[in-house]
């Protein structure tokens, strides 16, 4: 395998409605946080990777020009990675490969989004081409509601049961978010609150859906030499995977979802994981919708096909359960899209290095971070561990 690579520090902004600062200033907040955390400064950095959602979302095209100063990128090599919702994970992959290839020793990776500056639903409809799909697919909830229905139909999951499990996920995550100082939405909900909330796209209701957030996340990737030189707790990259489906939403099976399964297998193979449910201690699943989180439990081998609801209801994935998922509150509580999957990576790094604070999963040594994107089309993963 390639050179060993570690994450040696992460920085996040406070996520939420951030109309009080300009976009570059918000990006800089995350950059300053990771420099404060690691004791490094811009002159130590060999390269910078940044990314967001499409320019249509930002209202500024090719934002790396605009953010150059805020990133401390002046005079530095840069890359800009964007793959839709998976952007944050693809950013982490770029940072990883830059270091693993030997072309850089310290790479700063930054993902960001200011969703209150644009119109996320209107932007999402521009992801659909105008010949065929654009008039029918209404942003992410429409896409995912259809996927959720297919999943329930395939495995004959009673609607009531999946509703109950989805509601439990929502209640748990929103409670967990209280322990995450950076989370956006922190509320105390009951199962009834979720089940009686407004329908967005059936069966998905208001509390099954992630919010719009402003926020940024910064992560520093380091070579083995650099990581060992610094007195920081490194989270080692043990494996990574990425896989993409056809663009045409009707072409592939979104239930026994090959692109999710293949991406996971790539990561597990590199990390030497054969039984993810037993070997992983924590996972940060990209869960913009409660049902989609359950679908991923199955595709990633945490649950048998069609059995994720049962496992959720048994508490397998709750804090204190067998494999806690999204102890940070996940995407369901915080969603600055271009940063979202990178936050999954950052949170996993905090967990496996024992630095997650109030939402720490005790003894976590091996964790999985996930990103989802495209027209429910891309899955990307990164496995992080406390040991080289």
């Amino acid at each position, binding site marked *: 395998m390639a050179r060993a690579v570690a994450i040696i520090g992460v920085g996040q902004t406070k996520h939420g409605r951030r109309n009080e600062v300009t976009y570059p200033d918000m990006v800089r907040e995350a950059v300053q946080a990771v420099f404060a955390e690691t004791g490094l400064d811009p002159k130590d950095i060999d390269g910078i990777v940044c990314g967001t959602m499409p320019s249509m979302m930002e209202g500024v095209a090719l934002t790396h020009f605009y953010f150059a100063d805020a990133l401390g990128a002046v005079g530095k090599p840069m890359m800009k990675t964007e793959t839709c919702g998976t952007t944050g994970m693809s950013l982490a992959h770029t940072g990883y490969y830059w270091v693993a290839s030997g072309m850089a020793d310290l790479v700063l990776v930054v993902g960001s989004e200011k969703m209150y500056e644009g119109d996320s639903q209107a932007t999402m*409809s521009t992801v659909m081409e105008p010949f065929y799909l654009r008039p029918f697919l209404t942003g992410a909830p429409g896409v995912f509601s259809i996927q959720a229905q297919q999943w329930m139909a395939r495995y004959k999951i009673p609607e009531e049961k999946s509703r109950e499990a989805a509601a439990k996920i929502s209640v748990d995550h929103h409670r967990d978010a209280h322990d995450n100082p950076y989370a956006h939405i922190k509320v105390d909900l009951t199962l009834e609150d979720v089940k009686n909330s407004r329908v967005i796209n059936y069966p998905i209701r208001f509390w099954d859906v992630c919010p719009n957030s402003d926020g940024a996340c910064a992560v520093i990737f380091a070579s083995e030499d650099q990581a060992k030189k610094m007195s920081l707790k490194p989270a080692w990259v043990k494996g990574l995977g990425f896989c993409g489906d056809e663009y045409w939403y009707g072409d592939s099976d979104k239930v026994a979802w090959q692109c999710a399964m293949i991406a996971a297998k790539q990561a597990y193979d590199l990390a030497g994981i054969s039984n993810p449910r037993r070997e992983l201690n924590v996972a940060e699943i990209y869960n913009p919708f409660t049902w989609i989180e359950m679908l991923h439990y199955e595709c990633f081998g945490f649950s048998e096909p069609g059995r994720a609801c049962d496992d959720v209801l048994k508490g397998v994935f709750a804090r204190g359960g067998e494999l806690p998922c999204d102890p940070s509150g996940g995407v369901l509580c915080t969603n600055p899209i271009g940063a979202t999957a990178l936050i999954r990576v950052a949170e996993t790094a905090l967990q496996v290095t024992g630095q997650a604070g109030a939402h720490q999963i005790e003894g976590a040594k091996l964790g999985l971070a996930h990103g989802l994107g495209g027209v429910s089309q891309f899955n990307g993963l990164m496995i992080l561990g406390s040991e080289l």
Partner: protein
Amino acid sequence: MVTLSRDGKPVIKAEALVTYELALGPTWNRFFEGLKEEKILGNRCPRCRRVLVPARTFCPRCFVDMGEWLEVAQEGELVGWSLTEIEYFGMPTPPPFVTAFVTLDGADCKFMHLLGGIDLSGIDVVRKQIWNGMRVKIVWNEEKNGTIMDIKYFAPVG
């Protein structure tokens, strides 16, 4: 000019409008010509034998040119649907509407359009009228422009 956002912070409001012009190419062209004649055209991959609709130039999996063109059925099975009631900026289809995800008889992929001919006044009303697994058929608009909206919608059969 600076105005205040809903939470009282200074913001600059703006709208961006840019126009793009996309080449249809022969495959979309033939598919849309078919719609004008009330035909749904698909084509078959010579390697994996799947029938894809709308018709394609190449098979995404086998990465070879598609083969024989054929007309697929105008009836099929509803496999997913979604009711949209909330309007957002610049939405191409005014709500409420139901998006239908349908396997047309004889096709090896799913096709997407609207579902109509039903009462759309709220999710509870809609749920009583449609369900996954039900049969639906294509209803055509009288006036054809060679676009995807030449199809009016899918309607329940019977």
